[in-house]
């Protein structure tokens, strides 16, 4: 026992140091707990509520463990009761089946309510008309298209503050996940479907955006800056981007979609139906809404082209493509 105490003593400075660093780490608020939009705020509240509910079990268990381990240690002068055959009590067992059941029940109800409230495809209540941004995850960059404004960017997102943003997400690469921690939780971007995610920034500022699902070699480089500005600044930025020297063409898109990293890019225009094309091009192996003269996407490896030749031509299935995601709001 003496030896053990020595160990604890030796370990104490290390633990204390770790605690100080940890607390220092928390002092400037971490992103998820410092939300700047309604979805993020709702999720933060839910995290706090569920943590408190868990703490109801956690704290007594900690105290009980420490007390029992101390009280019933095996030492000669320990006068605590010793009952080697005491191994059953209906009352006690009912209590500790009961309490967790009650807590989980409460948590389940809270979770269910919040799940409906925070459903990502549900439109946010606002007087303002939402701005739509079509998001495509590529190897290894993000393409943001603003269909209403007719512009596009790569790895940079500018949005007006206080306005709901309707993100429509798809992928033209291995699936990824689109996450802006301070605005709200993430959602996957997957080929062959378009997912919807509503977010809103309540404050002007720069927010960190990132890819959250591993997609290969340069996954770590898929971060982007989210710049929430006033409506006026946003409009000015749109107008300025419209003057950008480069336009996004179908061919330009195919080049962009090739694996590789990218810095920030701006495009003054986007081709009609590009997003639809990306979403539907994988549906049942068929090209739907093909533009005349469009090439087959070339990012697939050569090995597959052998297989492609064998594939039987199919009738396009118009029902299939868009329904996987949640294009229609609930």
């Amino acid at each position, binding site marked *: 026992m003496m030896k053990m105490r020595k160990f604890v003593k030796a370990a104490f400075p290390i*633990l204390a140091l*770790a605690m100080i*660093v*940890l607390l220092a*780490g928390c002092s400037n608020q*971490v992103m*998820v*707990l410092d939300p700047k939009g309604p979805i*993020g705020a709702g*999720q933060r509240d*839910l*995290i706090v509520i569920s943590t408190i509910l*868990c*703490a109801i*079990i956690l704290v007594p*268990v*900690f105290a009980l463990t420490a007390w*029992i381990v101390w009280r*019933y*240690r*095996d030492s000669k002068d320990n006068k605590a009761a*010793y009952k*080697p*055959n*005491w*191994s*059953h*009590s209906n009352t006690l*067992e009912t209590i500790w*089946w009961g309490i*967790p059941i009650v807590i*989980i029940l409460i948590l*389940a109800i809270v*979770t*269910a309510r*919040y*799940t*409906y409230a*925070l*459903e990502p495809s549900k439109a946010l209540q606002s007087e303002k008309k939402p701005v739509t941004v079509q998001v495509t995850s590529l190897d290894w960059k993000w393409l943001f298209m603003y269909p209403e404004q007719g512009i596009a960017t790569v790895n940079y997102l500018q949005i007006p503050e206080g306005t709901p943003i309707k993100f429509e997400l798809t992928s033209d690469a291995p*699936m990824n996940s689109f*996450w802006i*921690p301070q605005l709200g939780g*993430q959602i996957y971007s997957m080929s062959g479907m378009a997912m919807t995610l509503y977010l809103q920034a309540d404050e002007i500022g720069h927010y*960190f955006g*990132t890819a959250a699902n*591993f997609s*290969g*070699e*340069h*996954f*770590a480089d898929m971060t982007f800056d989210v710049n929430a500005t006033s409506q006026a600044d946003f409009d000015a930025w749109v107008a300025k981007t419209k003057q950008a020297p480069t336009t996004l063409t179908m061919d330009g898109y195919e080049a962009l979609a090739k694996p590789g990293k990218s810095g920030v890019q701006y495009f003054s225009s986007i081709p009609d139906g590009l997003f639809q094309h990306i979403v539907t091009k*994988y549906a049942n192996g068929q090209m739907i809404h093909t533009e005349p003269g469009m090439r087959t996407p070339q990012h*697939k490896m050569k090995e*597959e082209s052998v*297989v492609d030749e064998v*594939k039987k031509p199919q009738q396009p299935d118009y029902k299939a493509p868009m329904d996987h*995601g*949640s294009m229609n709001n*609930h």
Partner: protein
Amino acid sequence: MRMLDSIKQFASEFFVTGDPMILGAQVSIGLSMVAMVVVLTMFKKWGWLWREWLTSVDHKRIGIMYIICSIMMLFRGGVDALLMRMQLAMPDNQFLQPEHYNQIFTTHGVIMILFMAMPLMFGLFNIVVPLQIGARDVAYPFLNSLSFWMFFWGAMLFNVSFVIGGSPDAGWLSYPPLSELSHSPGIGQNFYIWGIQISGIGSLATGINFIVTILKMRTPGMTLMKMPMFTWSVFSSCVIIIFAFPILTVTLALLFLDRFVGAHFFTLDGGGNPMMYINLIWMWGHPEVYIVVLPAFGIFSDVVSTFSKKKLFGYKSMVFAMLIISLLSFFTWVHHFFTMGSGADVNIFFAISTMAIAIPTGVKIFNWLFTMYRGRLKFTTPMLWTIAFIPCFVVGGMTGVLLSVAPADFQFHNSYFLIAHFHQVLIGGVAFGYFAGLYYWWPKMFGFSLNEHLGKWAFWLWNIGFYVCFMPQYFLGLDGMTRRTYTYSWDMGWGPLNLVSTIGGFLMGIGFLFQVWQIAHSIKFIKQHRASGDPWDGRTLEWSIPSPAPIYNFAVLPTVKTTDEWWEQKQNKSAATKGDVHYEPIHMPKNSAIPFIKSTLWFFAGFGFVWGWLWLAIPAMIGVAICMIARSFSYDTDYYIPVEEIKQTEAAWKGAKV
């Protein structure tokens, strides 16, 4: 000249080249193989190795081989972990390139779960279960040996990718389309499929073997509700294995067909769907974590009651809780992808089914606490790991409940919060549990105990290291750091916490070195560490026989009247001192070379499929078939140990005891 060039070309594709670290590993692997051959030849140990180990069907030997392999895999998985931590210790670090980092986190995950936790668990199953239920071996000793060698060669096939062909790099669950030929054209992904596939067949067979052993091989009087809690935990774990592992086998087979013959199960072209893979792999993957954690619960139950000198509290509750966890584990898999847009209704169902697992788990925690309550606690190393497990697992379980709250999971998913959570339950629950079990049953395996002093050093290093390593990661996750990111920029401000985390990782690494030292030290000073048959004042049948157990385990099968049979026998000494014991010849299985040969052939078949070399794969598969036929027609598979030999063995033990 052309031939020389083509050989060069082949060698550069076959061997992983161009990385000094891997070159170092290649050289050291080569040297240690040469050293092994030299040592075995010099000491004329080849025959011994073949007769006593490679062809053995003795569950105790097989258990020891499992444990040796798993400790080696723990070393490799641990080195992977420390390499990752070194890369992440600083922002914009250039220690590892992204391709290399991606390979390392993939192999770290696969090795730690499938080639470290699983075999360590199977090792403990093998050593303990037959002894606890009063059996002479498992139900199918031949199959048991086959299981081990399938695991061994599967693990070898996976590990060889490190130096030959290149490691897989699509994550430990290899989601398509990333793992498909279109995005992972290399050989690594094939190693992943075949390494896991071959060892997975072994795991499935072990699951079946132990279910039958537990149901059919119990000694007279041991009803199901008198079984030791570890045996119950093995039973509930094996129930999950036999339902979950076939899903894994099928899923990987389909992925292989996609890659090998251009099928479209999980590609979007041709009408497949990657979501199908993700559902299937988690239908195995989620139960898998309960497969590894339930036996740890069993170990804690046995350890806590032994070192509290008290009966386990709430036996029936414990059994019921474990069986309910086995069942619920199959209804939670979607919580791994709440963020894939299944919609609110589906998410709510899986959120609640996940939370519900916290109820039986919480009950178990209380039962362990109240086993200690009114007991007399001895703080031996197994008990220390058990006590440390409780707060650690409670926090890990709590963060698990937080993750199960679907809308909140949108913020936790794929972040370091998740990483911290599952390491807390897998290290705090599984690793702590298996360490407790290893220390607890070590004397039973080898006849000597491990040095407690060094064991306590290892314990404290691991524990402090654990919290220093993983507590910062919760905050990193909440601060937006995603898993599998190989670096981050200075402006993120994640540097300090990552550095702390890395320090913690190295503390655990030092803890591991202390454990190795502890084993080496205890072997060197083996005389001071000799253990009797019952070194801990145990409660269950395995402590009623010598350490290590004789080949036949029990000279006479004991008759069981209560749950803690051996403890009760010691309490009523009069009943134990019987007169002359009546021995009978003992029926035992004969060693067989077939499991070793057949699994080796599987290795070559797997290696052939990995490279697409049908000239190797097909003959190897034919060899596998021949082994099966040979086994079907071999009738000389068992023998009897004569009474005389039993008498001698028992007399030697009793003589030593006096």
